[in-house]
């Protein structure tokens, strides 16, 4: 079964659906588009379930699939270690199997919901094409057996996110939000790439299974720079990628704006699946992340701070989707606490439950907006409980689930995370306080309190009290059609029952009940388990905190906005303003990043492009050519004879050059006399290259009756016996030209 399972079908089906819908959807009408869009995902879901059952049958079974044998590309440079062979392979183990189930199941429900929600939209086929494309890319991300394949999916979901945030691109704000998401994600992707390079340079491979080998881990543990190992730097870079994709501090800013997209998109991409890619990556590469204890500590800390930070921002937000967006950021923070305290199974468990109730919340919000003519402000809603009973009850279930009230899913998963944080001992991290786990737990509790509060604030403001918006909108308010309420109900059921997949062990009780822990390989289990008593206490505390948040929300917003709440906001005006303005983080980014970039861009535009390139280089060169051409026109007279003048002039110049500076002036020589001695130097002391090998023969006749000297050197020394006037004759024989030349020179030898 191993090699033959058609694993590639899982991402390929949605991709094929995307191709069909984007290519032909406009022509074939809505029914066809819905059939293809939902059909592709449901088929993928069935394959994924089948695969999961195959996996379930056998421990440690892993399914692999290759699109084709061979490499995508490879590059070799001498040493084997630096050769890259990248093959497109898929890998399904128990972790990715869980992810595919969540993606396809929740994805299918959201597809189904969209058929009704997007019914009136002119870009119906485009929407489903993008949704399918997203599903395919997300499945590639999850199923990739190596980092490059995951990266393809990673970029693919980023692209789809961009396309879907800006789906209604005619509005400037939407296009801007899409761009913002894309650019901020790019920063994170850069980190992913760097991490990939680091891993490769350390281990020479990019396949997860190969990186997990002890030899590769050993390589990753080698020190790199700055007292850090390769693995540490790689994990930090990868974590930057995770903060981008999963909207953690400092790169969370794009997610609230991403709510500009259609609500099903927010549910699928920006709540249930894509934003959890970072969590998945940490779990997938946990052997790299766990290498240096500093990294998980950082991951958990960032997660905790983000969880609290986003939760406080959710307290004052008014658009319902914004509330949910902050909630998502906050819940993602919880997941990072989970994977950061090495309770990977808890993080993944929360990822799964969160996918259900957060998708449900978004779909519920969509249902509300659908009823209220796209009104988003919770302050302009109220008393909708009777008008929309299904939406109301399912919404309540989701709220209870996210708040962490007992039998609902969030209770178990959040509790698992908080328990993991509480028991995690940071003493192993040098320089980090050992009570960090407790601190993170405390922060998490506060965040959980805020979560319970703002979720029920939204719930009460929407469904209880009296209606605060325009009356004519209320008149049209109605329960949504069954294609929308159906998924709501299914998701609500999931939000209730899924928690029981991860019942924690309480002392000796429920030892075999944690199905998630059992399903995931042991490497992903929580590092430490709390005592039975502690578990109970932690559960009680968490429930109390959640209940407290709900109670506070009831007292403030149970019957509309209570005067106490307004008074509180008034008395803490400064804090309130900071919260409403989201801690001015966007403004900070604007000041620190955007404006300097704009200045630089302005400089590049005005000075470099407009002035240097356009004016100086482009027009300048043209002007130079133009002027030179005008001058040269006078030369082109068409008169052959004048052309010949130029030829003759050049030839004459060459002749003069060759005659005066040429190397062949061997016949002249100079004589230096001092006393009885003469030194004769013939010119052409430097013999031209082409005559080397056949040197000139020099004959020096000093004119005093002595024998003429034959030699190949142009310099000769002679001592005269008698003084007086002498005639020196030098003859030069050129063996190549068979010629000889003779020059004579009269010198007077004598005392001065």
């Amino acid at each position: 079964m191993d090699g033959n399972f058609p694993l590639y079908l899982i991402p390929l089906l949605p991709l094929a659906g995307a191709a069909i819908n984007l290519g032909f959807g406009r022509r074939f009408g809505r029914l066809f588009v819905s059939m293809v869009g939902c059909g592709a995902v449901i088929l993928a879901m069935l394959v994924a379930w089948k695969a999961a059952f195959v996996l379930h049958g056998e421990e440690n079974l892993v399914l692999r699939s290759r699109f084709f044998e061979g490499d995508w590309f490879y590059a070799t440079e001498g040493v084997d270690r630096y050769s890259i062979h990248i093959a497109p392979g898929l890998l399904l183990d128990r972790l990715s199997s869980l992810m595919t189930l969540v993606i396809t199941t929740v994805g299918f429900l959201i597809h189904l919901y969209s058929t009704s929600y997007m019914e009136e939209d002119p870009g119906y086929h485009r929407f489903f094409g993008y949704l399918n494309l997203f599903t395919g890319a997300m499945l590639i991300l999850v199923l990739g057996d190596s980092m490059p394949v995951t990266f393809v999916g990673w970029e693919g979901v980023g692209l789809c996110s961009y396309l879907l945030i800006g789906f209604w691109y005619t509005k400037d704000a939407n296009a801007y939000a899409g761009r913002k998401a894309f650019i901020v994600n790019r920063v994170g992707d850069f980190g992913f790439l760097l991490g990939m390079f680091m891993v490769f340079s350390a281990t020479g491979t990019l396949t997860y299974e190969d990186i997990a080998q002890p030899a590769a881990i050993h390589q990753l543990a080698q020190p790199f720079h700055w007292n850090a190992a390769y693995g540490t730097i790689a994990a930090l870079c990868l974590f930057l990628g995770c903060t981008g994709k999963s909207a953690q501090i400092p790169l969370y800013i794009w997610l609230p704006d991403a709510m500009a997209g259609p609500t099903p998109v927010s549910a699928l991409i920006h709540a249930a699946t894509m934003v959890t890619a970072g969590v998945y990556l940490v779990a997938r590469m946990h052997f790299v992340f766990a290498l240096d204890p500093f990294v998980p500590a950082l991951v958990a800390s960032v997660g905790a701070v983000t969880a609290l930070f986003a939760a406080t921002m959710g307290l004052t937000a008014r658009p319902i989707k914004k509330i949910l967006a902050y909630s998502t950021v906050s819940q993602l923070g919880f997941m990072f606490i989970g994977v950061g305290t090495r309770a990977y199974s808890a993080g993944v468990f929360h990822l799964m439950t969160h996918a259900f109730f957060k998708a449900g919340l978004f779909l519920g919000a969509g249902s509300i907006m659908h009823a209220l003519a796209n009104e988003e402000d919770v302050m302009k809603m109220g008393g909708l409980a009777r008008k929309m009973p299904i939406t109301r009850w399912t919404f309540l279930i989701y709220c209870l689930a996210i708040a962490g009230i007992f039998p609902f899913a969030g209770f178990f998963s959040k509790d698992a995370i908080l328990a993991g944080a509480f028991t995690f001992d940071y003493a192993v991290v040098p320089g980090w306080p050992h009570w960090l786990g407790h601190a993170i737990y405390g922060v998490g509790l506060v965040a959980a309190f805020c979560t319970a509060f703002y979720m029920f604030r939204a719930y009460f403001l929407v469904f209880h009290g009296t209606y605060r918006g325009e009356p004519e909108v209320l008149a049209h308010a109605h329960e949504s059609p069954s294609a929308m309420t159906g998924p709501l109900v299914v998701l609500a059921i999931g939000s209730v029952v899924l928690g029981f997949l991860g019942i924690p062990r309480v002392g000796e009780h429920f030892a075999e009940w944690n199905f998630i822990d059992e399903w995931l390989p042991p490497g992903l289990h929580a590092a430490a388990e709390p005592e039975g008593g502690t578990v109970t206490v932690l559960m009680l505390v968490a429930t109390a905190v959640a209940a407290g948040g709900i109670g506070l929300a009831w007292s403030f917003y149970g019957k509309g906005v209570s005067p106490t709440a307004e008074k509180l906001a008034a008395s803490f005006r400064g804090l309130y303003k900071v919260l409403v303005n989201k801690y001015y983080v966007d403004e900070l980014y604007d000041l620190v990043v955007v404006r300097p970039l704009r200045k630089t861009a302005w400089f590049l535009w005005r000075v470099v492009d407009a002035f240097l390139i356009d004016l100086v280089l482009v027009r300048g060169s043209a002007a130079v050519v133009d002027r030179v051409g005008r001058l040269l026109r006078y030369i082109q007279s068409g008169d052959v004879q004048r052309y010949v003048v130029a030829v003759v002039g050049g030839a004459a110049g060459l002749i003069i050059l060759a005659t005066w500076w040429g190397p062949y002036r061997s016949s002249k020589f100079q004589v230096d006399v001092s006393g009885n001695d003469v030194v004769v130097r013939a010119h052409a002391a430097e013999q031209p290259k082409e005559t080397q090998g056949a040197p000139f023969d020099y004959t020096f006749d000093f004119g005093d009756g002595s024998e003429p000297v034959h030699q190949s050197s142009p310099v000769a020394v002679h001592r005269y016996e008698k003084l007086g006037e002498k005639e020196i004759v030098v003859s030069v024989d050129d063996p190549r030209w068979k010629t000889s030349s003779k020059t004579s020179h009269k010198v007077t030898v004598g005392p001065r």
Partner: protein
Amino acid sequence: MIPVQDFLVLGALLFALGVAGFIYRRNALIVLMSVELMLNAANLTLLAFARARQDVRFHVFAFMVIAIAAAEAAVGLAIVVGIFRNRHSVNLDELTLMKH
């Protein structure tokens, strides 16, 4: 015995006269004759070097030059006749078609 450089000097002067004729005269015929003069100057120089190096291969080259001069004269004169047919003039300074 006449030294070789005398022949070379004679060739140079002859060539200069040929160039002068080429540059100064308007009549295309005379210009062609000037070309012949220059070719002969080149021939003279070739033969002088042949003498100096005692190499008869220079003579072969001079022979080629004469043959090419014959071809050049034939084509050149034909062109002159053609130009005269078309423009009723063989004045070179009226023929500035190469400008275009």
